[in-house]
């Protein structure tokens, strides 16, 4: 069996502090933002009363916060494993955290003090067209908050790019492009380096795309004669949003590649199909975003066709290769169930199952009746709540685990059950609502939609209870003992 806690992952005191900052902040933010989500579902259930104004502020903070927090926590996974292979800068890692927190403070200030409710997608020209609900200043603070967050991530990626190029010569070699068509693959070429390189390439471009539309929107906020093309702005916004969220999944999945053999006892080595999968996905992630604009009929037909085909194609390489890798690695491995491996299997299930409604919705003829219904939050909550979050929790449980190889505690068993049952109920009710044609982002729901909302609220309570259990145990473990090898 491979060493579960290799010496190469030892953390210095400073590194441990920085990592704990990322992870504990991430856990606290996840719980806070989940409670925002629960508040919205309770309001739609008519079990609590909040004004539409407050509803949309909460919705904006929930969306922007969750997208950012998943990015923050998954970048900690990437940093932890990538620093074994290349020399990353700790100050840059800390700077990313500082930028994130400053940006988050501005986002929260803009929403709850400035009453900004323009959604996490800040779709032009809504930020500057609120009908007097919020000011241009509040919108500007929100967008500056995003820019500062983006700056932090960009610094992190540039540092990782510099470090990777120093060791591997260029990004192509780090991706393993030299072995796509032949040659003897170095079996020790790290999957972490391949995945990190892909993320660095696509998310740097994604963040730059987001920065362009943010800066243009900022100029428009103070110089209304500077008018943007709404369709172009929407293209940039969804390019940024899609790439950023996908990159978070790909950063988190690094933990799966690294930890899987340590818990199944079955090492796996680099292969040509794996390299092809990541190379193909580097392109597909960048071109798939038009599937968010399938109902914008003014888009060129070729872009829509690419949107549908790339939606199918994006599912294939990395996701299918990873799911297959995990299943075959776990099958008849003789493993002993421990929290990290349970969470990894749950994560890959959530990712795999969540992709089913997502891919179906990527079909133009289906999108005509599913786009912007609750079907959409149904599928993205499926693979984020039951896919990416368990990947992150698996990493954290691994960090606090000891060499004693403790079995799963009763508390964790209870937490897992609540998380799975609550999570499936929660996302299932979104999908059921989408099937019933419920539009998304409605502060007030018709009476006939409320049973779905009420069941979803109960599911959300279970998920939050489980997260509280997990977070308490992880935070205690992280703060009490050094993370990583002991």
């Amino acid at each position, binding site marked *: 069996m491979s060493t579960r806690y290799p010496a190469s992952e030892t953390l210095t005191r400073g590194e441990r502090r920085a990592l704990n900052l990322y992870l504990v902040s991430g856990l606290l933010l996840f719980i806070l933002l989940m409670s925002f989500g629960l508040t919205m579902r309770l309001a739609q259930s008519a079990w609590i009363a909040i004004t539409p104004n407050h509803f949309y502020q909460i919705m904006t903070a929930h969306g922007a916060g969750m997208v950012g927090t998943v990015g923050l926590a998954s970048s900690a996974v990437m940093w932890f494993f990538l620093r074994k292979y290349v020399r990353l800068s700790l100050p840059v890692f800390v700077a990313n955290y500082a930028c994130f927190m400053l940006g988050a403070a501005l986002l929260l200030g803009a929403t709850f003090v400035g009453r900004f409710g323009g959604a996490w997608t800040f779709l032009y020209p809504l930020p500057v067209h*609120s*009908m007097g609900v919020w000011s241009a200043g509040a919108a500007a603070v929100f967008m500056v908050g995003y820019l500062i967050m983006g700056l932090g991530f960009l610094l992190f990626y540039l540092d990782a790019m510099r470090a990777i190029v120093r060791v591997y010569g260029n990004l192509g070699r780090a991706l393993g492009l030299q072995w796509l068509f032949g040659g003897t693959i170095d079996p020790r070429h790290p999957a972490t380096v391949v995945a990190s390189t892909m993320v660095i390439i696509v998310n740097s471009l994604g963040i730059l795309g987001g920065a362009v539309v943010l800066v243009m929107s900022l100029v428009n906020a103070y110089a209304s004669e500077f008018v943007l093309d709404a369709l172009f702005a929407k293209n940039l916004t969804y390019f940024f949003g899609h790439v950023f969220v996908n990159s978070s999944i790909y950063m988190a999945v690094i933990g799966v590649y690294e930890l899987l053999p340590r818990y199944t006892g079955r090492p796996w080595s680099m292969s040509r199909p794996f390299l092809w999968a990541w190379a193909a996905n580097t392109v597909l992630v960048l071109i798939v975003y038009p599937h968010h604009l399938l109902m*914008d009929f*003014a888009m060129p037909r070729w872009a829509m066709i690419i949107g549908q085909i790339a939606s199918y194609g994006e599912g*294939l390489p990395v996701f299918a290769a990873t799911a297959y890798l995990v*299943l075959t690695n*776990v099958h*008849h491995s003789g493993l002993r169930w421990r929290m990290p491996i349970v969470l990894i299997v749950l994560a890959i299930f959530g990712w795999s199952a969540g992709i089913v409604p997502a891919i179906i919705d990527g079909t133009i003829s289906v999108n005509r009746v599913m786009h912007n219904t609750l079907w959409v939050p149904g599928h993205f909550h499926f693979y984020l709540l039951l896919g990416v979050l368990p990947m992150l929790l698996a990493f954290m449980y691994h960090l606090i685990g000891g060499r004693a190889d403790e079995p799963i505690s009763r508390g964790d068993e209870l937490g897992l059950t609540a998380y799975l049952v609550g999570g499936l109920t929660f996302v299932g009710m979104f999908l059921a609502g989408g099937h019933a044609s419920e*539009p998304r*982002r409605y502060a007030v729901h018709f009476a006939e939609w409320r049973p779905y909302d009420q069941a979803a609220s109960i599911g959300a309570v279970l998920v939050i209870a489980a997260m509280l259990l997990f977070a308490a145990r992880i935070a205690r473990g992280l703060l009490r003992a050094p993370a990583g090898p002991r």
Partner: protein
Amino acid sequence: MMTIQDEVGVLTLAGIAGVALVFLYVIHGATRQADAARVEARAGAIQKWFFLGLLVLGAGVTAATLAPFPIPDQRAPVGTRHVVDVVGHQWGWRLPPGPIEAGVPVEFRVTSADVNHGFGLYDSSGRLLAQTQAMPGVTNRLVYTFARPGRYRVLCLEYCGLVHYGMSAEIVVSAAGDARP
């Protein structure tokens, strides 16, 4: 009769159930140990067919769903006598009061006076029939043929601010022949 939503629901349930069964099978046998090389060899043999199957399925669905292209050509004339200009604004719809006839294609020319909206066409049972985006500076042409006369509803399907949830309108569709001037 099954609606598209029903078909999508059944497909999704079947897909998720299939994924769950595979995972349950693997989880069930995870604690038993078998020779890794044998498992890998078997998995490798299945993998080729699995990926080939996914590829063929993807190609087949793509061909079946893209021809004919499900969105009307935005430049070519539709050639219908029913043209309806729709303007979304915060927070309502401007629709001409003119009659619409069942069984005749209706061309909705949809745009927005301010921010992005979504023109969602619902039947009286609350089922979404068709949609397109209403975007400032852009006109999207949606062609839809109402099968039956009755009262239809328009809801907003793109978040547009404080009263997004309250942005609705009604369309009355008359029986074929009744609407002719």
